C-alpha cells in the first residue's frame, strides 16, 4: 500500500514533502561550497554591505574612546557561537589595538568563555606581530580577569565599587603573577565611570543583567557625546531582544550577528562619512559626523569570509519555503482537477 501511495504522488506532493535528509544534504553542500569558495576567492568575493545606524554608532563610539583609556570587555560566548561572536571580538580587538586603547576581559556567563577570549586575543596579537605592528602586551596593555560565577552579584559590585569587584584576582605580569589592580590597565580606574567603555559580547541574555545593574553617567570624548558607556555585540538570535535596549537609548551601539561583523569590517575599511574611504558609508542621523577608517589594513576578515555562506544559506532557506508553497499549490490544484 505504502509503495502504491508513493507511486501515485504527484510532483506537487513530492515538492511539498521533501525528506528532511535531502534538505540537510543540500544545506551541507551549499554551505561548505560557499565557505570554500570564499576562502579561495579572498578579496574578490567581498559582497557589498550597508551598515545600519546601530553598528555605525557602535563603531563611531569605539573609534572616539580616548587613547590609553581602559575598555571593559565582558566576553560571554564560547565555541558554540564562534561563527558570530569570534568575528565580533576580533573586529573590536583590531580597533582597540590600533588605537592603543587598553582593555580587560572577563566573563560572567561561562567558565570557558575567558579561555576562548584569550585564544582570540592571541590570534589577533600574532596577526599584528606578523605585520610588524606593535605587540599588544598582557599586563601592560590588557589583562584577563577570568570567570565570575555569580553574574548578578559581580555586576552589582562593579557598579558599587569597581576597586573591590575584582579583589584577589591575579594576572600574568613580566615579574610573575600580580594583583590585577597593580596593572596599568586598572591602576587609574577608581569608579565605573573611569572606564572608557563597557562592551558585552554575548550569546545569551547577559546584557539584561548589566542593563539592570550598571548605570553610567553621560560622557564626552572631546566633541563626541556618549549618553551611555554600555555597548553590546550579540548573536543574531539575541538581536531582536537587544534592539529593545538600543532603541530605548540604553546602549551606545549594537552589533548583531554575522551581519554585524560584516558591518564592522565595512566600517573599518570605509569609515563613516569619510571622504578617503573606498565607498561612502553615510550616517543619516548626523551628516557632520566624520569617523575615519583603516583602509589598506586587515579589515575584511572572518565576517566577510562567512558572508557569502550567509547569503547562500538564506537563499536556500527562501527557496525551500517557496518550493514548499509551490508544491502545496500544485498539489491542491491537481486535486481540484481530479475531483
Amino acid at each position, binding site marked *: 500500500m505504502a509503495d502504491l501511495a508513493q507511486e501515485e504522488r504527484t510532483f506537487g506532493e513530492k515538492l511539498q514533502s521533501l525528506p528532511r535528509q535531502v534538505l540537510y544534504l543540500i544545506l551541507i553542500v551549499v554551505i561548505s561550497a560557499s565557505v570554500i569558495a570564499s576562502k579561495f576567492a579572498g578579496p574578490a568575493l567581498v559582497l557589498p*554591505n*550597508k551598515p545600519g545606524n546601530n553598528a555605525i554608532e557602535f563603531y563611531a563610539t569605539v573609534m572616539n574612546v580616548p587613547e590609553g583609556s581602559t575598555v571593559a570587555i565582558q566576553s560571554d560566548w564560547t565555541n558554540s557561537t564562534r561563527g558570530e561572536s569570534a568575528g565580533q571580538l576580533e573586529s573590536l580587538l583590531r580597533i582597540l589595538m590600533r588605537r592603543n586603547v587598553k582593555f580587560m576581559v572577563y566573563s560572567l556567563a561561562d567558565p570557558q568563555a575567558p579561555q576562548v577570549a584569550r585564544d582570540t586575543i592571541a590570534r589577533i596579537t600574532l596577526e599584528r606581530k606578523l605585520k610588524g605592528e606593535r605587540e599588544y602586551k598582557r599586563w601592560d596593555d590588557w589583562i584577563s580577569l577570568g570567570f565570575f560565577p555569580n553574574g548578578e552579584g559581580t555586576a552589582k559590585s562593579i557598579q558599587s565599587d569597581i576597586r573591590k569587584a575584582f579583589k584577589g584576582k591575579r594576572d600574568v605580569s613580566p615579574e*610573575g603573577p600580580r594583583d590585577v589592580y597593580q596593572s596599568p590597565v586598572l591602576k587609574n580606574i577608581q569608579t565605573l565611570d573611569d572606564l572608557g567603555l563597557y562592551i558585552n559580547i554575548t550569546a545569551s541574555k547577559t546584557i539584561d543583567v548589566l542593563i539592570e545593574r550598571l548605570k553610567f553617567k553621560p560622557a564626552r570624548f572631546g566633541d563626541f557625546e556618549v549618553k551611555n558607556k554600555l555597548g553590546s555585540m550579540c548573536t543574531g538570535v539575541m538581536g531582536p531582544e537587544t534592539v529593545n535596549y538600543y532603541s530605548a537609548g540604553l546602549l551606545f551601539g549594537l552589533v548583531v550577528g554575522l551581519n554585524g561583523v560584516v558591518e564592522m569590517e565595512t566600517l573599518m575599511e570605509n569609515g563613516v562619512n569619510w571622504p578617503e574611504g573606498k565607498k561612502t558609508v553615510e550616517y543619516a542621523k548626523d551628516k557632520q559626523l566624520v569617523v575615519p577608517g583603516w583602509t589598506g589594513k586587515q579589515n575584511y576578515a572572518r565576517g566577510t569570509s562567512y558572508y557569502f555562506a550567509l547569503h547562500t544559506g*538564506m537563499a536556500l532557506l527562501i527557496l525551500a519555503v517557496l518550493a514548499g508553497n509551490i508544491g502545496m499549490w500544485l498539489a491542491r490544484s491537481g486535486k481540484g482537477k481530479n475531483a
Partner: protein
Amino acid sequence: MNFLIAQAPATPPLNFWNGDNATAGLWIKIIIGLVLGFALMIGLLFAPTRMRRPIVVTFTFLAGLFWMVQWLWPRAGEGVTEPTNATEGVALWLKDALPVVTDFANILTAFLLGLGIYSLVSIHGKRLIKKQTDWVFSGILLLSIVIMMIFGYADWLTRLGEGAAKVELVPGFWNRGRDLLFDGMLQQMDAAMFSLIAFFILSAAYRAFRIRSIESTILLSTALIVMISIMGAIVFMLDSAAAPVSNNLKLSEIAGWITGSLQTPAIRAINFGVGVGALAMGIRLWLSLDRGGVSG
C-alpha cells in the same frame, strides 16, 4: 559581639555573621549555629503533620520577606560603616546578611546537585549492571564522569593561590589533560550540537511557512523581507534600484520599519505580560496562596 569588631583587622570586614579565624567568638558562633540547625531539623522531623504547612508557610514568607526588604529598604550612603540612625542600621545589617543568605542558597544548591548526580548514577548504574538496552552508552557516561572529576579536581589543585597564573604560562599534565577533555572534547561537542540548529531551522521553515490563511501570508511576507534584509548584496542592489523613486521603498527602510515599529513593540508587550505573570506567580508563592497548583 562589638568587642570582636573593634579588635578585628580592617580586611576582611567582620560583622554579626562571621568572626576572626581561630577565636573563641567564632567558635561560639559556629556551635550556636550547629545547635540551632540540629534543633530545627529535629523539630521539623517530629512536628505533627498538621503543623508542617504552617512551618513551611512561615519559612517561605520569611525568606521572601528578606528579599522584599532588601529591595525596598534605602541603602546606606557610600563608605558608611557605622550606623547613625535606625534606617542605616537596618541597611547595614541587610548588606552584611546578603552574602550569608546567598551562601545558604548556594550550599543548598550544592546538596541538590549531589542528588542530581545520584539520579544519573543510579539510572545508568542499574542499566549497566543489568546490561539493559544501550548499556554501553551508560558505561561511557559513568566513565566520563569519573575521568572528568579526576582531571578537574587535579587541575583545580594546581591552580590554587598563585598557581593560576603559573599554569597559564606552563601548563602541566593535569592541566593539559583537563584542557583536552574540556576544550578539546566537550566544547567541540557543544559546538556540534549547536550547529545542528542550522539544519533544523531549514527543515522547520520548509514545513511551517505555508500560505494557508491571510495571517500566514502576512507572516511569510514579513519573514521574507527580514530574511532578504540580512543579505547585504541583495539589499544593496534593491536599495540602489529604489533610491531614485523613494527612500521609503528601500528594502533596508522597510525591514527597519518592521523591526522598529512592529517587532520591537510586540516583544516589549510580550515581555510586559511575562513580567506581570512572574510577579503574580511570585506573590502567590511568597504568601503560599498556591495549594500545590494544578495537582490539587
